[in-house]
C-alpha cells in the first residue's frame, strides 16, 4: 500500500497518539511554566546593594543557583533522564510528564528572569514615585512588560518538548514516540518506514497547532502599546 492508504487504515491509532502527544506536551509545559514563572517572580528583585546584607541576597542566590541547576539538567540527554526516573516512578505517563516538565524549567525561568530584570528602570522609578507599592509594581508593571519575553520562552520550550516527548516512548510514555519507536525497531518490515514518516509528520502538525495557539495568545494578552 502507499502512504495515504497507510494513514487511512491506521487513522484511529494515529489520531489517538497525536492527541496524546499534544496533551502530554501541554501538561508538562503548563506545569513547568507555572513553576518557573512563579519562581522567577519571587527572585527577580534586581541587584542587591553589595554593601548591605538583606533578604535580596537570598533571592539572588536562589535565582542564579536555580538557573545554573536547571541549565545543567538540560544537558542531560533525555534518554538518560527518562531511564534515571524509572526506578522512582516506573513506566508510563507519570515518568514522561515529570521528565518533560524538568526540561521546560530552564528556558522559561531564564526568560522570566531576563524579562523582569530588563524592564526600563525609568518606568519602575516613575511607578514608585507615583506611589506604587513593591508588589503592585511587580505584578502590574514588571510582569506585563516582561510577558512578551516570558511568552516567547514558553513558546520555544514547547517546541523543544515536542521533540523530547518522542523519546518518552522508551519508558512507555504517551504520544507519537510510540509510532516512531515502533517503526525504527522494525526497520525493513512492512510499513515500518511509513510509521516513522507518519510520526515525524504529525510531530510537525502538533508544532503547527501550538504555534497557532501561541500566536492567538500573543494577540490577546499583549497590549498594542508593547507589541513588536
Amino acid at each position, binding site marked *: 500500500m502507499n502512504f495515504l492508504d497507510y494513514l487511512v487504515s491506521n487513522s484511529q491509532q494515529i489520531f489517538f497518539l497525536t492527541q496524546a502527544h499534544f496533551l502530554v506536551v501541554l501538561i508538562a509545559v503548563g506545569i513547568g511554566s507555572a513553576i518557573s514563572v512563579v519562581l522567577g517572580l519571587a527572585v527577580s528583585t534586581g541587584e542587591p546593594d553589595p554593601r548591605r546584607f538583606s533578604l535580596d541576597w537570598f533571592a539572588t542566590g536562589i535565582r542564579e543557583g536555580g538557573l545554573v541547576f536547571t541549565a545543567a539538567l538540560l544537558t542531560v540527554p533525555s534518554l538518560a533522564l527518562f531511564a534515571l526516573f524509572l526506578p522512582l516512578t516506573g513506566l508510563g505517563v507519570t515518568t514522561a510528564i515529570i521528565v518533560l516538565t524538568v526540561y521546560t524549567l530552564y528556558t522559561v525561568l531564564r526568560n522570566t528572569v531576563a524579562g523582569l530584570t530588563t524592564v526600563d528602570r525609568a*518606568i519602575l*522609578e*516613575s511607578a514608585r*514615585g*507615583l*506611589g*506604587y507599592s513593591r508588589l503592585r509594581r511587580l505584578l502590574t508593571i514588571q510582569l506585563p512588560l516582561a510577558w512578551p519575553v516570558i511568552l516567547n520562552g514558553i513558546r520555544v520550550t514547547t517546541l523543544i518538548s515536542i521533540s523530547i516527548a518522542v523519546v518518552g516512548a522508551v519508558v512507555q510514555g504517551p504520544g507519537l514516540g510510540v509510532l516512531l519507536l515502533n517503526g525504527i525497531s522494525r526497520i525493513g518490515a512492512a510499513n515500518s518506514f511509513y510509521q516513522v514518516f507518519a510520526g515525524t509528520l504529525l510531530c510537525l502538525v502538533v508544532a503547527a497547532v501550538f504555534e497557532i495557539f501561541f500566536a492567538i495568545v500573543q494577540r490577546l494578552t499583549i*497590549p*498594542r*502599546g508593547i507589541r513588536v
Partner: protein
Amino acid sequence: MIVLEGVEKIYPGSTQPAVSQLDLTIPQGEIVMLIGPSGCGKTTTLKMINRLIEPTSGRILLDGRDVTHVNGDTLRREIGYVIQQGGLFPHFTIADNIGVVPKMLGWDKQRIRERADELLHLVGLEPSTFRDRYPRQLSGGQQQRIGVARALAADPPVMLMDEPFGAIDPITRDRLQDEFLEIQRTVGKTIAFVTHDLQEAVKLGDKIAVFATGRLEQYAAPDTVLTQPANDFVSDFVGGGAAVRRLSLLDLSRLELHPIETDEKAAGSRNGTPVVEVDGAGKPVSWRHLPGGDAAGTAMVTVPISGTVYDAVDVMLDGCASLVAVVDEEGRAQGVLHWNDLVGGLRTRERGA
C-alpha cells in the same frame, strides 16, 4: 507648602553629605527652581520631599504635617511626580496612564474617565484622539505633557518635577514651558522643580535655590540671584550675561514707553514724536517721521506689549532698527522703545520695580 527642616542625607560609606543641613521653605502656590551643577544635591533634595530617598536626619513637613516617617507609598500618592523621560507605562493607554493614581486611591471609573479628559484638555491634547492611544504613538513633547497630566490627576497640592523638559528639543521645550506657566496660573500648585538650565529657572521660577556640593548657596527671587549673587560660587554659576538675561524679567507692560503718533494726527507731527503710518486695521506699517532720524531708512519692527524687554531687543537686532514700536493685542501702536533707553535707564510705571 513644603518645609525642609535640618534635612540631611549622607550615603553609607561617604564622608561628605550629599545634602547637608538643609532648611528650605517652599511657599504655597509657588514654583521653586532647584538648580546647581551635577552632583550638587538638587535631585537628592527633591527626592527626599517624597521620600524616594530617605533623609538621614531632619524633618519634612507638607502643609504643616510631618511626613518624615509616614508610609512612603501612601505619601507619594498625594504628591505629583514628573521625571525627565516621562516614565509613562507603555502597556497602558494614555487614559489609563493618567488615571493611575486616582485608580489607586479608589476613584470610580466614570470619575477617572472624566478627570482624564479634563486633564488632556488642560495639557492641550484632544481627548477623543489621544485617550486610547499608547505612549509610543506620541512624540516626546506629547509624552511629557501626559507625564504632567498624570502628576496632576489626583489633584495633589504638591508637585515635584525632575528636569521634565530636559530631553525635549528647544523649540518644543519653550512651548511646553509657556504652557506649563499657563497651567500653573490655573491650578496654583506648590512646585519644586529641578533644572540645570538657568534660563529655565529664571523663566519659570518664583524663587531660585542654588545648590553646590550639598549646600544651599542662595535662595531668592530670580532677579536677585542674577543681580546680587550671594557669593563667588553663585556669581560664577550665573555667569556672564546676567544683565542681558535680566531683560527677560522686565515686562514691557510695566514700562513707561515713549509716546507714538499715527499719521491721522499728523498735524502735530514735527514736535519730536515719532509718527507711524498705519494700515486700515490700525497696525503700523512704516515710519513716517522720526525726530532726528531717517524715517524712510529705518525698518518698522514691532513687539507685543505682552512681551519683555528681551523680546524688544531681539526684534530690534533682527531688523537693525534703533527703535521698536510696542503694539497691543490687535497690533495697534501703544508706544516706542529706543535702543538708547537700555543704557539710559528704562522707566517703569511702578516705583522700585
